[in-house]
């Protein structure tokens, strides 16, 4: 069975500093990886995805993610954090062998402080 792990429940960073939210995956076959963000009482917003190609994927709102096959990781990054980036971030893997459902990690709460 495929899975993703987010080892940090919460990440704190000062505004203007770079941020990293970690994600590791376990799949059989090629991984199809996604990052979503959830603001309080809101739905899940798509940030970016890795299917194939360049290991550095650029997404919305200045976010990017680095796919590392040898470390089975897909960490989310942003060079300069904003207070408005504070939210809950989910890494997900897509089941391409079956019904294409997403399996989510447990989520990482990002808090960006002034």
């Amino acid at each position, binding site marked *: 069975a495929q899975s993703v792990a987010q080892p940090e429940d919460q990440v704190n960073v000062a505004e203007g500093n770079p941020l990293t939210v970690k994600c590791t995956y376990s799949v059989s076959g090629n991984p*199809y990886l*996604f990052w*979503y963000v959830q603001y309080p*009482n*809101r*739905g*899940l*917003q*798509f940030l970016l*995805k890795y*299917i*194939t190609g360049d290991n550095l994927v650029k997404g919305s709102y200045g976010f990017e993610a680095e796919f590392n096959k040898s470390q089975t990781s897909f960490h989310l990054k942003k060079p300069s954090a904003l207070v408005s980036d504070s939210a809950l971030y*989910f890494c997900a893997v*897509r*089941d*391409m062998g*079956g*019904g*294409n*459902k*997403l*399996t*989510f*990690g*447990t*989520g990482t709460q990002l808090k960006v402080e002034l």
Partner: protein
Amino acid sequence: AAGVIQSPRHLIKEKRETATLKCYPIPRHDTVYWYQQGPGQDPQFLISFYEKMQSDKGSIPDRFSAQQFSDYHSELNMSSLELGDSALYFCASDTFPRRETADTQYFGPGTRLTVL
């Protein structure tokens, strides 16, 4: 751009009552997915439909059923509600993907169900 529409946004029910949640996918999206997110938890897949046929089934209780209609909208029917069914229910949609790509699932704002 049009997004996934879910109704109602909030729903309060008593134990043992029934509830119906509706989902309207993004235009031209033919696949709908339902997820349940309990308090402080990650979203869990319930069920999905493609072209009105169930395409996958996850941890959906037998008390729940769902279907997709000819206009691609979907309804999640929940009966004999329990306190533990209180959660945020998301619907997502995409187009049926080919293996060499993975279309993105776009999520609706969710329906917050509270069972008293």
